[in-house]
């Protein structure tokens, strides 16, 4: 049975990997960029002050929320942190909408809107497609689990070939070694990321536990797992609103840590409750410890209890995935490992094409092979191009244009299909991989220079002079990635040239 088991698993690895590879690539790119979502959020608002005062203007944010989103289901105020030294105020509406804006921490003045790093985070977990997107991402994640386990099972020489990378061999050998290198050496990370990723939305992906244990009563489950004070709505507006800052200070004493997230439940009702919670940087596991207060009187309503063992495990798995813990070092390591995951996916799909090179060359554009080649170039070369185009839009759009964030997203949504369609059209005659990688490289390298003219406060000369290395880091990373894409463009050019000469010599041989 052994032979056929390996062959079945090899077949499964190939097809599970291919079918979901493009989707996973989008998810991986979104997630890798989202490692620095807060830093990107700040970079995309270049007017943000580098330091927040010890006493940020939370009341101004509450006033703005009251005026603009007074009928929301809940308000959320995010206090300034090192990663994002400004205030954020958002509201969650009953129709599922979530609207958030940033405010200067000292004055409470509204900062320019942007799709922000949040855009890539949302792209990552639901492809900006709501509930259906979330389920699609879950399916992709579970297929990734299958691809990982089958990949290990069929890799017979996994230990012997651990350090092998025949880079100069070119062609299928190099691609396969690249896929094995990033796949095997990054295996602990990829397995962890895939499993924790699907585990985060387990309540949506596997409702069997809820059905069996609670008869489907999700509210009861959430209350047992993470109890919080609940009050019936009184159906009348609050007579007054207790000031937030004393609550924040009280929470700081109770929880013995600096608060980060302030939530206001049912702000338009007299039953409103304020919750003051912490950020997730101190522990690997997500930290949901919250101090609760009556929104009208400011009286304390107690604290959340410590999580049970299983809930703590869930928080640990989720926290491991989202790397909000520790400092920059962890985010950088996840970023690098995320890039290796993107490389693993891209190399894997390229292996599929190379292994069938003869059939691919013989097939027409309107075939399964043609579709794979088109998706490969459209997704792997097109997505980075679209992402950096969006950042260019962020720099060029005037600060006061309405719906600024939407325009940035529109740029992304137009740049990607445009680049993809152009690349697919050039597949037969041109060198679309080289061209798209080169264009991406130029956009990435150009961006820090453009910033010097249109966003002087956030550009490299200023940030380096001020010692604002977090902001400088984004521009520096763009430069480094730009150089990386230039290298990819060169490789793509020489690979395409090699293929051209191969087909030319094959054609000139007597049939």
């Amino acid at each position, binding site marked *: 049975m052994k032979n056929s088991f390996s062959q079945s698993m090899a077949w499964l690895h190939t097809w599970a990997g291919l079918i979901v590879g493009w989707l996973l690539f989008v998810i991986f790119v979104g997630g890798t960029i989202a490692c620095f979502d807060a830093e990107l959020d700040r970079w995309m608002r270049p007017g943000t002050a580098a330091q927040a005062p010890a006493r940020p203007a939370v009341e101004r944010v509450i006033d703005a929320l009251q005026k603009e989103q007074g009928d929301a289901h809940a308000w959320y105020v995010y206090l300034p942190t090192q990663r994002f030294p400004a205030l954020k105020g958002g509201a969650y509406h009953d129709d599922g909408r979530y609207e958030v804006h940033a405010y200067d921490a000292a004055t409470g003045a509204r900062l320019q809107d942007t799709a922000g790093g949040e855009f890539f985070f949302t792209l990552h977990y639901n492809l900006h497609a709501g509930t259906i997107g979330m389920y699609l991402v879950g399916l992709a994640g579970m297929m990734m689990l299958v691809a990982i386990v089958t990949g290990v099972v069929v890799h017979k020489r996994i230990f012997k070939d*651990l350090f092998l990378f025949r880079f100069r061999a070119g062609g299928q050998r190099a691609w396969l070694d690249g896929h094995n290198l990033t796949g095997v050496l*990054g295996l602990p*990370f990829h397995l962890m990321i895939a499993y924790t990723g699907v585990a985060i939305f387990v309540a949506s992906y596997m409702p069997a536990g809820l059905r069996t244990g609670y008869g489907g009563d999700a509210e009861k489950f959430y209350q047992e797992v993470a109890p919080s004070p609940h009050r019936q709505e009184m159906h009348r507006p609050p007579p007054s609103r207790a000031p937030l800052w004393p609550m924040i200070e009280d929470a700081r004493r109770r929880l013995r840590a600096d608060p980060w997230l302030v939530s206001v439940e049912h702000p338009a009702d007299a039953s409103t409750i304020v919750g003051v919670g912490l950020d997730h940087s101190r522990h690997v596991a997500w930290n949901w410890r919250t101090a609760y207060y009556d929104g009208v009187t400011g009286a304390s309503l107690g604290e959340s209890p410590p999580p049970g063992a299983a809930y703590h495990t869930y928080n640990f798995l989720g926290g491991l995935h989202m790397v909000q813990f520790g400092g920059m070092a962890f985010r950088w390591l996840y970023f690098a490992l995320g890039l290796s995951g993107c490389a693993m996916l891209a190399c894997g799909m390229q292996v599929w094409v190379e292994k069938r090179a003869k059939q691919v060359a013989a097939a027409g554009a309107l075939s399964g092979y043609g579709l794979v080649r088109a998706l490969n170039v459209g997704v792997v070369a097109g997505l980075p191009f679209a992402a950096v185009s969006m950042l260019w839009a962020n720099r060029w759009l005037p600060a006061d244009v309405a719906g600024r964030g939407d325009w940035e997203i529109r740029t992304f949504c137009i740049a990607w299909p445009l680049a993809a369609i152009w690349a697919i059209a050039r597949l037969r005659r041109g060198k679309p991989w080289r061209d798209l990688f080169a264009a991406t490289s130029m956009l990435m390298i150009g961006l820090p220079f453009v910033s010097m003219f249109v966003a002087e406060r956030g550009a490299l000369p200023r940030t380096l002079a001020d010692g604002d290395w977090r902001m400088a880091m984004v521009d520096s990373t763009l430069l480094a990635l730009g150089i990386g894409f230039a290298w990819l463009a060169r490789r793509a050019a020489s690979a395409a040239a090699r293929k051209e000469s191969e087909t030319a010599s094959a054609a000139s041989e007597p049939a």
Partner: protein
Amino acid sequence: MNAWLFAAGLTLFGWAALSHAMPRHHQEAFGRAPDGMRRRAHRIAGWLALIASFAVCTAAMGREFGPVMWAALLCIGAMVWVLCRNADPRRARWLGWLAPLPGLVLLAI
């Protein structure tokens, strides 16, 4: 910061040693096949270095962050080692041997 630089260096040293314990890679790096004793020595040095890296991470960052840092360094360290080793097997030996030094020096000061 310096602790994890040291741990990263130990990881690189460990992977280098483990790869040199393999006849094929030893041949590429040293120009000759290893005998049994050399293989065992490389393997033991490699494992010890990786374990030491775990100890340094955990000592510096605690039992919660330390193992996560170590696991990440293992993955990245292995990738870096393979890329360097493939670029130049002979010179890469020095990278492997000297990798723990910068971190160690910074820790000592």
